């Protein structure tokens, strides 16, 4: 389980803009370390999010997503006080969930 995500969910009218920063190396599997050995691929493959318990967001990522990934999506029909839970799963099977309240 990695370091905590930073989730900001801001109400804008009847929607909530959700910004997530995740702490992850996102190794492509192309890089070689200082000893010349290839660093194995290690990256978030799946990101999901729920709104008040209902799954709303689902994305599949490859190695091209940047280190310490950022993602922005907008949930319809959301308001201040609603609960957002974001989960990521990486290619090692590690996962991490964090939650935030819409402000």
């Amino acid at each position, binding site marked *: 389980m990695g370091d905590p995500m930073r989730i900001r969910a801001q109400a804008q009218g009847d929607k909530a803009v959700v910004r997530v*920063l995740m*702490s992850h190396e996102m190794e492509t599997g192309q890089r070689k370390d200082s000893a010349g050995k290839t660093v194995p691929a290690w990256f978030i493959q799946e990101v999901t999010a729920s709104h008040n318990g209902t799954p709303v967001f689902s994305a599949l990522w490859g190695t091209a997503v940047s*280190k*310490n990934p950022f993602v922005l999506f907008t949930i319809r029909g959301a308001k201040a006080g609603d609960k957002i839970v974001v989960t990521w799963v990486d290619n090692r099977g590690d996962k991490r969930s964090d939650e935030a309240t819409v402000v």
Partner: protein
Amino acid sequence: MNKLIVAAAGALLWVGVAAQAQKSAADGIAEYRKMLEDGNPAELFEAKGEALWKQKRGPKNASLESCDLGKGPGVVKGAFVELPRYFADTDRVQDLESRLVSCMQMLQGFDGAAIANTPFGRGEQDNVTALATFVAAASRGLHFDLPQSHPAERQMYEIGKRVFYFRGGPYDFACASCHGEDGKRIRLQDLPNLSKNPGDGVGFASWPAYRVSNGQMWGMQLRLNDCYRQQRFPYPGFSSDATVALGVFMGVNAKGAESIAPAIKR
């Protein structure tokens, strides 16, 4: 409504394509940097630093919440824009990172010298960077106002000025070689003139910063360390007087400038 938005976006795209030819490289870079401001991975380090500030750690199993960063024990907001400054308990002018190490030693029982000898990005040195990010973030938007009331602070300013203009190393470089004049740049990076007040969010006002090129969080100590590397000088010791003096020189020169730290950089 959605169709209107899509149509408007499409129209903007076409206008954008036409204007592209006239946009300079500098404008393009500015647009790129602006797009990155929304969601700075520095926030991850800020959150880590805040947790470390409050967590009981070290041989003394204490938190850093009574650490005096210059505005009184535990006062975090506003501390960053008044550093470096003189501290009576250590009888030294100290910058943010060296002061954090002092507090880690005095309050938590860590070995300050060992932390200073730890490479950047490892062990407790990594924690110092996160803590520095947290403290800097608490002063975002405030304006630099380093004290120069103590004779040691004034002396460090003069030393910093000498260090800034000191030419040495195999290329005969000084800080001033790159940062001593207006309007200089290296390839696509504009070089701020640090011998005077470069303005809001420029130079001194933007470190600590998250560097996208290596995904690392850099405090001012690492920034200066890397400047020395680029000049092919020997590396300065962590929080050595020379580095603190440079901080005083740049910080006092930046008086009134708005801090945007922690920022995001190439």
